[in-house]
């Protein structure tokens, strides 16, 4: 049977989600944004359902609702119409567009559609529109999220007006973030934003000198839950920084009973926060997939950038905390030292149980690496490690080779393990093998509170180890 899987042509019980789903997730962390999927109605419908059952939240995602005629004549007009209708009907601050397998296959040129719309509708000239290329047949959720964060930063950050062709694909996408904003477009739009200190001046924040607090840019990957992002901000604030988080799921998808539900994103990064990015003292990105986003900021504004592939585990948290101490010139706060001490005690108390764990893990790459390396660090053994897609598998290393695989492969290979770590869809494999199953990744629909989980930093690492141990006992 294992012989066969090596040459298998199909995916059985895929763990991948679509790149457009990752794009949706990134857009959901930006305040006042309306996400518009350029594809047929099913594309957006499946994403809404999948994210909704994971986050237990309404997922605002609009669609250009392509039909057979647009497949024949091109979806150009549909895209223009979609942006127009969405702008007129819902009055968003930003529109975030992502493509789909359908539109990428016949090669709709989103950039020129947008340029043409701006000519026809001069009143929409200044509406910030972000374009992300997320062909369904390239990569997984992580890649879609990555490309979208890059498009968000290059389109919306500060005075970033230069035409950047970031990631053209071979199937007709000419790049993202091109020609989508002019230097005064963001300033003009700040008027309609909800923040009280917005200024119509196009110059970056005029009160920079009055503000003694140092801003720091945080770019969390999609492996971090809204709870994780919250924890991340709290740690950074311990050092006196004011974080600008892009995208910020901790205040949009954190599952709060907001007063008014709306068809545009509520909470998340403010548009003027993007403008203030150039002022940041440093940029920290989390997850290897976010490295390029950090580099974009570094190159555009000369902001020092550090990437942390993982924040789960003792050593990686130590590195993170020491970096913050160095940038801020402050000592490590007492609170964090206390948390570290508690984690050390936990490691001592449970070293034997942790050392006995045999782990079979299947997740998107950044999360796979974070959780697996943390478990390896405390003595657990890895039996099999399956990434959802190729990205990053040769750049990060674990004691065993990381392979690309689906959950059917997990089922075939996890027999000798004592714990399966996978998303909720791993339940079929875990059930057949009668092996305990710790839910992680996306979707997690059959356990309460996953989006609120904090598995990063000293306290989060401790919680992750507790959750792991409680799954097997």
């Amino acid at each position: 049977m294992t012989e066969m899987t090596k040459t298998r042509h199909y995916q059985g019980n895929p763990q991948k989600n679509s790149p457009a789903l990752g794009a949706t997730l990134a857009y959901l962390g930006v305040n006042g944004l309306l996400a518009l999927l350029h594809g047929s109605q099913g594309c957006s419908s499946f994403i809404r359902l999948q994210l909704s059952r994971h986050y237990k939240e309404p997922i605002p995602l609009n669609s250009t609702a392509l039909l057979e005629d647009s497949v024949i004549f091109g979806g150009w007009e549909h895209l223009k119409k979609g942006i127009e209708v969405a702008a007129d009907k819902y009055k968003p601050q930003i529109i975030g567009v992502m493509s789909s397998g359908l539109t990428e296959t016949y090669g709709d040129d989103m950039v020129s559609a947008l340029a043409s719309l701006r000519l026809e509708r001069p009143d929409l000239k200044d509406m910030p529109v972000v374009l992300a290329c997320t062909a369904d047949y390239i990569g997984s959720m992580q890649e879609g999220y990555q490309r979208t964060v890059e498009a968000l930063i290059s389109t919306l950050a500060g005075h970033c007006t230069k035409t950047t062709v970031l990631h053209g694909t071979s199937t007709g996408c000419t790049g993202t973030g091109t020609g989508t904003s002019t230097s005064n477009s963001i300033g003009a739009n700040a008027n309609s934003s909800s923040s009280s200190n917005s200024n119509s001046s196009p110059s970056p924040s005029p009160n920079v000198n009055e503000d003694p607090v140092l801003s720091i840019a945080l770019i969390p990957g999609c492996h971090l839950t809204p709870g994780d992002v919250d924890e991340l901000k709290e740690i950074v604030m311990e050092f006196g920084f004011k974080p600008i988080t892009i995208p910020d799921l901790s205040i949009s998808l954190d599952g709060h009973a907001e007063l008014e539900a709306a068809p545009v994103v509520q909470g998340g990064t403010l548009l003027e926060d993007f403008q203030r990015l150039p002022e940041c003292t440093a940029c920290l990105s989390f997850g290897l997939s976010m490295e390029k986003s950090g580099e974009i900021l570094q190159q555009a504004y000369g902001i020092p950038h550090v990437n942390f592939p993982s924040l789960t585990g003792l050593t990686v948290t130590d590195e993170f905390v020491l970096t913050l101490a160095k940038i801020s010139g402050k000592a490590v706060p007492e609170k964090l030292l206390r948390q570290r001490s508690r984690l050390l005690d936990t490691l001592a108390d449970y070293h034997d149980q942790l050392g006995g764990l045999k782990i079979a893990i299947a997740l998107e790459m950044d999360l796979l690496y974070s959780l697996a390396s943390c478990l390896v660090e405390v003595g657990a053994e890895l039996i099999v490690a399956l990434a959802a897609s190729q990205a990053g598998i040769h750049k990060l290393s674990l004691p065993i080779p990381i392979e690309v695989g689906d959950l059917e492969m997990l089922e075939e290979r996890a027999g000798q393990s004592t714990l399966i770590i996978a998303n909720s869809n791993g339940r079929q494999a875990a059930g057949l093998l009668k092996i305990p199953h710790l839910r992680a990744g996306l979707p997690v629909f059959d356990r309460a509170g996953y989006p609120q989980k904090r598995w990063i930093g000293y306290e989060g690492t401790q919680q992750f180890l507790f959750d792991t141990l409680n799954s097997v006992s």
Partner: protein
Amino acid sequence: MFTNLTKLDLKDKKCMSDAGSPKLCMKALPGEGAERSCAYDGARVVLMPITDVAHLVHGPIACAGNSWDNRGARSSGSQLFRRGLTTDIMENDVIYGGEKKLKESILEIATRHDPKAIFVYATCVSSLIGDDVDKICQEAEKELTIPVIPVNCPGFLGDKNIGNRIAGEVLFDRVIGTGEGSDEKIPLAINLIGEYNIAGDLWGVLPDLENLGITLQTAITGDANFDDLRSAHRASLNVLICSKSLTNLVRKMEIRYGIPFIEGSFYGIHDISETLIKIATALEDPDLLERTLVYVKTKEEETRKTIARYRTLLENRQAILFTGGVKTWSMVSTLAELGINILAGGTQNSTPEDFQRMKALMDPSAQIIEDTSSAGFLKIIAERKPDLIVAGGKTKYLAHKTRTPFLDINHGRKLPYAGYQGMIQFAETLTRTVLSPVWGHLRREFPPKEGEQDD
């Protein structure tokens, strides 16, 4: 290569605007946020509950990856249908074509999973790159001993209803009547068409059928196995449960196999009884009819007695109903049974006839929701301030933000609501939802305004 849509029975689609109904199932406009789905989704809704076959999606990850094993259809036997199987079309396949990969996948799945048949779903991308799914299925079939059935349902063909119809065509052309057994009619055997055994709904109805001596040949397609489906033409009656989307199938079965059909619903006491009586009448067995009349009377009394205490608790509450298909009108009568008034009703994927039927059952003052987007949904809740919302799962979390009790009646739910037993379950769950103490907490101002601290 696609099902010729003009051949489908579209008789019901005549314009009903004169009759005062909104435009139903019209094309969604780009950007308006109609939140509907595609033809592929419609086809998988109908076919994927078939339990002992493999469902292989020939498309990129978005089609299968985001959606497999996400409907609550249940099986009493094989769990094979819950496998997410896809060719996972990648960039190279888009460039060089995916036919070879598809064929290998079919052969591998046949070996690895031993299915009774394989349904192969074409999608937008596989259709655009020109993969000939029909041809590949034929080729693979020659090498295997099981049917390999193409389902040409790329999402761009239209919305869910079109997908439903395509699935009906596939069942008629490729499955029903292809078995090796006898073709003889089985007396008192029926097919339940459009019943997908969501949360075990079918199992709530089976005991009543059994008690009356009616046998279920197969549901189409809840908890159905392939062999029973192949012999679906041996049934003496087709009972159409969910809306009109499979009308083409029952009409064709009537013409080819002489099986009459009726429409019915198993939601709500009145509709269950009516449907059972209609079945008995249509089966033309006087004894059965007599039995049924007595049976439904006893069951109605029993059920009403059990739900009486729920009715007391729910009576005169105001509801907004937001659902699709047959559920629109069958839910109106279910809620009426519990003394609940409908303030407004919305329909998605419903036919004009479904709609007219709902309208007739509702209070004349009740409003019809025409804007089916999230924005329209929120607006009507803000305007009408209902005591509860009954809708499909996709509006669930939106409804919660309005701090209004919400009951999911679509495929996301965990509990069966069909049949007399289901009615009791429905009443119980609805009561628990409406009377939950959490809504009070959600609506309480905090911190309290000046002068309200002593309350």
